[in-house]
């Protein structure tokens, strides 16, 4: 049986932190309260995020035109050009998606596939507490450095939407007999209520993605502004700025800790486990 951590333990500069991801940036606070810089988003994550974003802007504008051609330039093949751009953007979108998919397996713990799927009970519990937090049913939150449990679930859905959007998009290309899509995706209309079904789904998904983007951007700004945790800049520069004790506590803050705490059932026992963990480090 070991003793509780001492004040000194907690004031030790690197106490309980996975050394490779955390750098202290501010020594004016007690070490546990001070903000540290955490490198969360690696380059491929940031790159694909912005390529995807750019492609989606283009796809949404050109897609809306295809759906309802509201203007044309006399003498120009306006629709042909718009559809061409839509397809170029579609290919960029797909390329970005392929890279991001690769990174699901090659990236750090914040961008791995496991960050999107509740793989343990703690993660699942966080889905509940996160929902309660959003509904103003609870004030506190489990700490997370990467995606929170709800956001990651949303991203999972969004990734699926992207996939279906890509399938329907290329199925629409295939409807014209364009190979290889006609052969590869000839089955798509039959599972989507026919050719018109494919179009409607493609069209509806655009709206779903736009709705997600509004929520996503809005809350990025909101969270960043209110929490001042560097969320906005993180997707540009890669790092977040978080209180030290938060990093220690966070599910994805230290994988070493995770294996221990995830077995616990409630906040109290989790806190105890954390304390135990800190003690055993000594």
């Amino acid at each position, binding site marked *: 049986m070991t003793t509780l951590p001492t004040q000194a333990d907690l004031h030790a500069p690197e106490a309980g932190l996975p050394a490779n991801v955390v750098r202290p940036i501010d020594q004016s606070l007690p070490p546990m309260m001070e903000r540290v810089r955490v490198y969360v988003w690696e380059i491929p994550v940031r790159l694909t995020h912005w390529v995807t974003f750019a492609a989606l802007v283009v796809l949404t504008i050109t897609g809306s035109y295809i759906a309802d051609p509201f203007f044309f330039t006399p003498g*120009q093949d306006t629709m042909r050009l718009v559809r061409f751009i839509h397809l170029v953007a579609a290919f960029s979108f797909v390329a970005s998606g392929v890279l991001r998919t690769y990174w699901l397996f090659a990236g750090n713990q914040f961008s791995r596939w496991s960050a999107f799927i509740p793989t343990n009970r703690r993660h699942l519990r966080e889905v509940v507490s996160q929902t309660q937090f959003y509904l103003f049913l609870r004030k*506190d939150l489990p700490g997370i450095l990467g995606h929170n449990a709800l956001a990651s679930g949303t991203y999972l859905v969004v990734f699926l939407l992207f996939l279906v959007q890509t399938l329907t998009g290329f199925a629409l290309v295939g409807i014209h007999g364009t190979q290889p899509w006609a052969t590869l995706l000839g089955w798509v209309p039959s599972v989507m209520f026919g050719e018109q079904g494919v179009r409607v789904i493609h*069209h509806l998904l655009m709206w779903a993605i736009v709705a997600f983007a509004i929520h996503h951007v809005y809350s990025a700004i909101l969270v960043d502004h209110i929490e001042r945790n560097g969320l906005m800049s993180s997707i540009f520069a890669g790092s977040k700025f978080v209180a030290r004790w938060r990093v220690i506590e966070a599910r994805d803050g230290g994988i070493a800790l995770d294996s221990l705490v995830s077995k616990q059932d409630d906040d109290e026992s989790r*806190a105890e486990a954390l*304390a135990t963990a800190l003690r055993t480090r000594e």
Partner: protein
Amino acid sequence: MARQDGLYSALLARGITRRDFLKFSAAMSAALALPASYAPRVAAAVAAAPRIPVIWLEGQDCAGNTEAFLRASHPTVAELVLDTLSVDYHETIMAAAGAQAEAAMRGTMSTYPNGYIAVVEGSVPVADGGVYCTIGGKAFSDTVIEVCRGALVTIAVGSCAFDGGLPGAAGGPTGAIGAGHAVPGAKVINLPGCPMNVQNLTATIVHFLTFKAWPATDAMGRPLFAYGQLIHDQCERRAHFERGEYVTAWGDEAARSGWCLYQMGCKGPETYANCPTARFNDGTSWPVKSGHGCVGCTMPNFWDQMSPFYRRLPTVGPFATDTTADQVGLGLVGGVTALTAVHAVGSYVRKRRSDADARAELAAVSAPVAPPMADSSARSDSSTEGRTDR
């Protein structure tokens, strides 16, 4: 059974020259997308063919395909009926009625087992024991099984016989299905359309006479020579589509200039058929040529899938509500925006409260104090700090 002189000699007898006949054969080869070198073979095959018995059944139909058949021009219906086929049963044109009509059908079935063509026009109502269509007191759903099972091939003409068509559309109470569905296992060639283009029927028959085989079909049993390509990709208005030049009101300048009907709901971009090239009524016209969009009448479940006909996309919902994809999408976006806004206000209020708490806490921890995680209430109060939810 005595065999007839072939079509060729019959045509000669009607004063039709060999040149005309070769022209017909060439036209048929073209319809079937055969190389021109096939024309003599088509000619020879058709000329030598005996008259194939046909039993033409009508179920839940409007006789539109029968009328289309009457409009056949290459060969004409007279040539088809008198020289190429032996239409032994066809309620709309046959002389016999009642028991005598029924006897004509039975006679053909027993004289030519597996040697006659069954043509089915109209859908087959299978609900409630087949009471929605009876002929001679028998349920049509039984007759169609009997006749098609014993046939060389079943040709389902029109969309009703293809997949239930109009009677099978949402709201229809009769359990209407297509012939292929009603007679599982039967060899069925589908010629959807409302009605079918008769040129595709004659070409299908000529293909059989020429190659002793039925034309290649797609997964839905539609001959590829007729249903292999998108209308949109064969349309004479396609250049206007590419340009972005669309009709936006009936009878406007754009309509007179033959601009694209996409904005008026044309379903050419989702419909497979050869209407633009085969055209109707001896090649006179087809819907888009005359100014109205295609309604997709060769496609599965077209009454529901392709309607509303004047909107590009179907409405969303179980059936036929007037909610469009855009309305759903805008609703979604509006809803999300509203929720986000409400949430933003809530978060702002919470933030102000917890900021105050945090300030108090900060004052408390400036002097060395117990670690936050050892004190769960303190942790709760400062919980939003470092939160990374997105």
